C-alpha cells in the first residue's frame, strides 16, 4: 500500500511502499507540484527504481523554473538506495 498527500504544513507525506505498481498514483500527484516542496518520508518504508524515476522526473521539471524537492526523514535503507543512485548529489536529503 502506498499513499501520498499534503499535511497541514504543506509537506508532501509519503506512506508505505512505493513500488512499480504504485507509480501511476505517485506520478499523478507529483505532476501537480509546481513549486519547491518538502517530501516527508518518515512513513515511507520502501522505494524501488520506479519510484526513483518519479523523483528524478519531478526534480528535473521543477529545476526548469528554479524550484526543487527536499526529502526529509529518510530511513536508512532508502538512504542507502539514494546513495547508490547518486541522488544525494541532486536532491537535498535528510536522514531520519
Amino acid at each position: 500500500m502506498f499513499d501520498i498527500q499534503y499535511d497541514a504544513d504543506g509537506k508532501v507525506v509519503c506512506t508505505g511502499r512505493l513500488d512499480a505498481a504504485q507509480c501511476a498514483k505517485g506520478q499523478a500527484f507529483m505532476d501537480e507540484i509546481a513549486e519547491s516542496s518538502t517530501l516527508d518520508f518518515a512513513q515511507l518504508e520502501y522505494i524501488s527504481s520506479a519510484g526513483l524515476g518519479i523523483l528524478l522526473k519531478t526534480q528535473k521539471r521543477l529545476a526548469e523554473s528554479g524550484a526543487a524537492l527536499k526529502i526529509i526523514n529518510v530511513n536508512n535503507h532508502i538512504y542507502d538506495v539514494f546513495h547508490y543512485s547518486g541522488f544525494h548529489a541532486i536532491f537535498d536529503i535528510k536522514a531520519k
Partner: protein
Amino acid sequence: MKRAFARSNDSLTALYEFAEDILEAGDVVDAARFAVHLALEELFVNMVKYNPDTKGDIDVEVTVEDKVTVTLTEYGAAEFDVTVPKNVDTNASLEERTPGGLGVYLIQNLTDSLDYQYSDGRSRVIFTKESGI
C-alpha cells in the same frame, strides 16, 4: 518455497508478502530483507516489461539457509542477461540524468551474487544475499 505469479505489476504486493513471510520466518535482518525485496521487484518488473508477448506465469523461489537465495524463472522469454555490467553515471548532474536504467544497476550492487541462465526460451535469474543471522 516456490510460487507462480501472474506476469503483471499487479502481482507485486503478493510477491512482497510471499517473500516477506519467508524472510521473517528465517530471521533475516532488516537491511538484507530490504535488499532482497528490491532486487526481487526489479527482476520481476524487468521480466514483465521486456517480454510483453509472453503470457506464462513467473516462478519465484525463495529459500533461507546460511544466506537468502532467490530464483526467478520464466518460459518463452527473450534472452536478457542481467549480469552484464550496467554502467550508470551516478555522478551525473541533474541536467544529464535521465529516468530509467537504475533497476539493473541496483540489482548488481545490492546482491552478493547474481547468476543468469538461458536455454530454449527458459530464462532464469538466481541471486543471493547474506541473511545477517
